[in-house]
């Protein structure tokens, strides 16, 4: 493998070197990343860093962006809004970043997005799913390349509409993400299935972020009249929930279950065969969802380099770097205002499929996939079989619904 690729690399090196003579004064393109690198969610920052570094190495191997080398800076948001704003300001003022990317927590993203108007620097959100950053808080400099809550819940409600359950409840984290997931689910499912019934606020199960014992929430759901359950718990919360729920007979096949982030690889790797089969799960990117050459190359390169299959957060960071490069090539510049123009309406082929960044609200229209958990001896984790794919057009709400007034 290495020997085979040596010749093109050498050729490229010569090209870059000779180009470098002409552009000796060119500074590298600087990308500032802001993820959770410490604490309970550090695993998300780690995955993102892997995806970002893979993308940057691929770019630099081909001569960088517009012939300029790409350099990266990583900062830790600790998942706190004030720290997030501080590190983004640090990227812009101290590290001299041409663009900033990242943000895991919706709270951090909601805090950072408005500040971008003052910093006049493009921000590419790669994980945080709050509708606001491409909705009520949308602005000229803020973009998102990953799926947001609305898109994921649109898929969930489409699947729910085909199920026989009429009465629905939820188990979600007791902060904006969980509440918004539930609110959009009610809104979207009621449109598709007018006779659907939703349990009132006091009867659904929202658990604080620090919860480790979910037994009382599981009991509450099992004692309710609900036939279907939307589970928007994620990460460590979802792992705890699934294990405890399995022991309590929650997955006895008597209820329809949708897990909006159940196909996240960090969850599947932790749970392995403890993840029940036959459950509908979603994610923001599933590495087996399509067999385009771009995806196959990404999955192969990623798993060869890091020994795990790429998680959605790795894909998000990878996608952002690639989208930025494409925008820069499109406008032939990395100047911040030009990049904004380049990103608007940008279409490119990514591992997840073809995405288009909508100019009206800066949300990427991206394909999505849900699937049913299944065991497969070829994989160390549960995989999805069958997979149901959705096109970006059918799951992205129209601009009028987002509440975005672009300035």
């Amino acid at each position, binding site marked *: 493998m290495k020997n085979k690729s040596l010749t093109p690399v050498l050729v490229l090196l010569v090209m870059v070197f000779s180009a470098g003579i002409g552009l000796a004064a060119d500074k590298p393109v600087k990308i500032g990343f802001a993820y959770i690198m410490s604490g309970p969610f550090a695993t998300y920052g780690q995955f993102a860093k892997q995806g970002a570094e893979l993308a940057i190495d691929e770019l630099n191997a081909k001569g960088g962006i517009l012939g300029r080398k790409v350099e990266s800076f990583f900062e830790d948001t600790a998942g706190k809004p004030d720290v997030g704003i501080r590190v983004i300001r640090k990227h812009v003022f101290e590290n001299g970043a041409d663009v900033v990317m990242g943000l895991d927590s919706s709270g951090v993203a909601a805090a950072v997005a408005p500040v971008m108007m003052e910093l006049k620097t493009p921000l590419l959100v790669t994980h945080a799913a709050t509708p606001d950053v491409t909705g009520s808080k949308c602005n000229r400099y803020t973009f998102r390349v990953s799926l947001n809550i609305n898109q994921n819940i649109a898929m969930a409600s489409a699947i729910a509409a085909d199920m026989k359950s009429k009465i629905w409840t939820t188990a979600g984290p007791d902060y904006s993400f969980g509440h918004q997931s539930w609110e959009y689910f009610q809104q979207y499912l009621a449109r598709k299935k007018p006779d659907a019934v939703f349990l009132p606020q006091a009867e659904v199960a929202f658990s604080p972020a620090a919860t*480790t014992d979910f*037994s009382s929430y599981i009991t509450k759901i099992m*004692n309710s009249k609900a036939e279907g359950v939307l589970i928007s718990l994620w990460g*460590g919360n979802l792992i705890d929930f699934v294990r*405890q729920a399995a022991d309590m007979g929650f997955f006895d096949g008597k209820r329809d279950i949708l897990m909006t982030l159940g196909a996240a690889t*960090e969850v599947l790797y932790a749970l392995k065969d*403890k993840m029940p089969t036959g459950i509908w799960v979603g994610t923001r990117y599933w590495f087996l969802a399509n067999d385009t050459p771009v995806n196959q190359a990404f999955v192969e390169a990623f798993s060869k380099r890091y020994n795990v299959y790429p998680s959605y957060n790795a894909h998000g960071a990878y996608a952002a770097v690639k989208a930025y490069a494409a925008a820069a090539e499109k406008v032939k510049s990395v100047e911040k205002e030009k990049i904004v123009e380049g990103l608007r309406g940008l279409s490119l082929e990514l591992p997840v499929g073809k995405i288009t960044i909508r100019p009206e609200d800066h949300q990427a229209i991206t394909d999505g996939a849900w699937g049913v958990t299944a065991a497969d001896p070829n994989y160390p984790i549960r995989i999805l079989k069958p997979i149901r794919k959705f096109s970006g057009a059918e799951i992205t709400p129209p601009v009028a619904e987002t509440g975005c007034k672009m300035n």
Partner: protein
Amino acid sequence: MEAFFANLLNGLSWGMLLFLISMGLTTVFGVMGVLNFAHGSLFMLGAYLCLQFVRWTGSFWIGLILGPPLVAALSVLIERFLLRPLYGRDVSLQLLLTFGLMLFLDDGVRLIWGAAYHVVNPPEVLSGSVALFSRSYPLYRLFLVILGPIVGIGLWAFFTYTLWGKLLRAAATDRQMAEIVGVRVPVLFTAVFAFGAWLAAVGGALAAPHQSVGPAMGERIIIESFIVVVIGGMGSFPGAFVGALVLGLLHSFGTTFFPQLQMALPYILLAVILLIRPRGLFGAES
């Protein structure tokens, strides 16, 4: 009725886990007057070591037996070299030191075991569930419900009938007097701190099959254990037992009956109890 019993068991099993952790915290505070912020981190370390032993040997029991003494050994070093220079100084310094220790340990485990979530399976005999009314209930949770009181009674017997237990109580009541009658207090302090750490680590090992093992598990439990200890009365064993039970039950029944107040419930309980009984339920009034 069925829902009532399910909630009761949920509350009891969580309460028993809290009890084990709070026991160590309250002992260390009662005897040494040290409020140990890093107690949750020792709990976490117990879980990680259990995970490591399970990886090496495949046996949860080996992890439960061998992990906690290692944590106790580490805490002997902590007490001897970090805490000891601070005795007799301002209490706030101990607080800051144990806080620094917490940051160090919480992030340190990430360097060793990585940032990913880990899962420990319950031992073969305790996995699965038993039929309870029309539902099934996890055997491991029932094990916790039964284990809690056994450990509690064991510790009570230790403190009431053994020489070491009596020495500990004596030192807790009046350190100077204990010193005068010949108790080697420094050695006793080291032993108490190690004992508290051992209890925290046992709690961590027992929690490992129940929740995912990750760097934040200590931070998440430390405040709840503080509340248990304060509600029950600092340094009181029966207090820790009752406090843990109350908090566990409040958690499970609160989920059903006051979902919106869930997050504030422990703090409301805390404020009400401290305003009525300034030294907690079982604390000696001064």
